[in-house]
């Protein structure tokens, strides 16, 4: 079961990522202990030189993690033909207990990586690299997260058995299911719609406001994350229904399938991009008072906020078009 090209590729990417972060760990500890930009000592010069290497390594790892998420979901969807009872990625991920934890871990690492990349970017723009220590400390925090992704993926892929009868999305995302997914599916459509548009509108407004005025950066991150949740809840509770034109099919994964013209990618790519940019804005805010970053941070965070605003707008527009074009009548008669 593990002999699937995409699985080998994912495991390869995760293993290399963990190996690179492990290789960077002694250096990170060294930086945290001895970094002193004002010193001209031999050690400091060595450290400065090596930061180039390890920053590049870390950027490489983070970029890999962003791509891995896409490949992971894509692969889960493709593999659904191999499991009895699976109709889309849900069945594949549900084939054993490790599938959804692996996906959630991968998503968490995705957003952490986005935050780290933003911090790294501003740090490299300042002449005195003021955030080097913080950056490498964060790398040490990220290492267990990336290692957890590798471990969960290994567990998940190694325990995949084709003879397991898994459950399809119909049973996980149904109004009668207990738990979070069932509750999301059971949300009354009107209330869910109001919450969906209100939260997304708020996220768009804060991001646009920040892009214009440079104020309220932390709120961009908060509303972005809230919108991410609201958007997923909205997709499960009503957007998916409109796409399938079926009043009880709540699956957020079937929309990725070619039968529905890959409409899901039009929703998820802007949503993840917007949220990642929002998280990036939030990640750099604590450092905006650092002297050498007074110029750098507002410029970057305004740009990220602008991307977030446009992406949220795009996501909302796509969802609205899908709702308007659909033949399903969910509200009223």
């Amino acid at each position, binding site marked *: 079961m593990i002999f699937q*090209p995409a699985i*080998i590729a*994912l495991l390869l990417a995760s293993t*290399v990522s963990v190996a690179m972060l492990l290789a960077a760990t002694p250096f990170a500890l060294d930086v945290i202990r001895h970094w002193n930009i004002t010193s001209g000592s031999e050690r400091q010069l060595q450290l400065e030189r090596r930061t180039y290497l390890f920053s590049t*390594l870390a950027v490489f790892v983070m970029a890999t993690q962003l791509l891995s998420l896409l490949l992971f979901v*894509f*692969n889960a969807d493709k593999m659904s*033909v*191999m499991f*009895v009872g699976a109709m889309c990625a849900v069945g594949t991920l549900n084939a054993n207990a490790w599938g959804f934890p692996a996906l959630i871990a991968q998503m968490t690492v995705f957003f952490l990586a986005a935050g780290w990349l933003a911090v790294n970017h501003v740090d490299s723009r300042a002449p005195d690299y003021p955030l080097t220590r913080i950056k490498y400390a964060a790398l040490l925090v990220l290492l267990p997260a990336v290692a957890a992704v590798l471990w969960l993926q290994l567990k998940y892929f190694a325990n995949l058995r084709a003879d397991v009868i898994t459950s399809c999305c119909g049973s996980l995302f149904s109004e009668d299911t207990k738990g979070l997914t069932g509750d999301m599916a059971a949300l009354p459509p009107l209330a869910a719609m109001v919450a969906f548009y209100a939260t997304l509108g708020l996220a768009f407004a804060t991001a646009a406001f920040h892009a214009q005025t440079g104020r309220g950066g932390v709120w961009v991150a908060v509303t972005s994350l809230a919108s991410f949740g609201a958007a997923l809840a909205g997709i499960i509770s009503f957007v998916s229904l409109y796409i399938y034109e079926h009043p009880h099919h709540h699956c957020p994964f079937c929309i990725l399938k070619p039968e529905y013209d890959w409409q899901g990618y039009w929703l998820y790519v802007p949503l993840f991009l917007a949220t990642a940019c929002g998280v990036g804005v939030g990640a750099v805010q604590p450092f905006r008072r650092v002297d050498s970053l007074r110029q750098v941070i507002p410029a970057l965070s305004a740009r990220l906020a602008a991307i977030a605003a446009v992406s949220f707008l795009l996501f909302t527009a796509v969802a609205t078009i899908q709702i308007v074009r659909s033949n399903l009548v969910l509200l009223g008669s």
Partner: protein
Amino acid sequence: MSPWFEKQRHLIDFTLASLARRKGRHLGLLVVFALLVFALASAMLFAHALRHEAQQILDGAPEIVLQKLVAGRHDLIPPGTIERISGMRGVQQVHGRLWGYYYDPVVKANYTFLVPPDNSIQPGTLVIGPALARQRGLAPGTGISLRSYSGALYSFAIAAVLPQASELASADLLLVSEADFRAFFSYPADHYTDIALSVANPAEVRNIANKLAKLLPDSRPILREEIQRTYASIFDWREGIMLALLSAAILAFAILAWDKASGLSADEKREIGILKAIGWETGDIIKMKFWEGALISLIAFLVGFIAAYVHVFHFGAPLFEPVLKGWSVLYPRFVLTPVIDGLQVATLFFFTVFPFLAATLVPIWRAAVTDPDAVMRT
């Protein structure tokens, strides 16, 4: 946004010019890289095309095939069984199938005898598959004599040869009339080889299979989706084995890339030194080197992938055929339908570009941190 793009554009410009200046040095790497992509892409494209072909053929298969078992072995369907299950709710059509294998000592190959469901073959004639026609040199109008398992000799006239397009499924096939089939194999009257059931609602297939297993405990229902899944896993597995074998090549390539990237010529070192002396930062050099790697891998990826596409879909993948396809005496000749799968391209990209970039990171950094004065003084 625009200054950033502007900067990258200039870096790419510069990198392209510097690549063009040292064509010979990069050509070797490019060729090896393209070859690696070619090998991997051929295996993947071929496996996917086979998977696709199998899926297409099986789409026309009956939803359920029912076999009778005796002591765990496949046995004939006795009279009366078809009547027992034909009234079952949800089953659209039931028909008994007649087929069997015949070993021909002349060409040392197994043939598949089949009575078509509409029994449209004239007694005394055969319709044969294209591979068989080639092997025995048969054409419509000629005849063939076959010795049956009972020892008697039977002569048939060839009514037609099946079209080449169906060869994947019909290479070793002989279509025969029911009367001839029963006589040739001394098949007991009213017995069948197995039963094919068509079910209208795909969601019902599993329930009907359960009911069949309950109604006829000595039988085994085989579902079409199970066969499809088995085929898909077989080809996945073969593809995985190929990739696992080729992973040694990926590793070797990564080592080559590392070596190539770290062995900077004096000329290149001087160039980096001068660039730094005129104000380039270490970060800029890393970016330039990164673009160099990205351009090389992109070109190699495109060249390798296109070559693999031509190799698989225009020449029938002669290099990987025996491993991925399997073999037999009467092997079908067929042209694969070109199919490209997005996941596959993404996977291939991960397999080739990712190790290359990972392997060149450290050498790139080594090159970028060289001190300008140290280089220029030598």
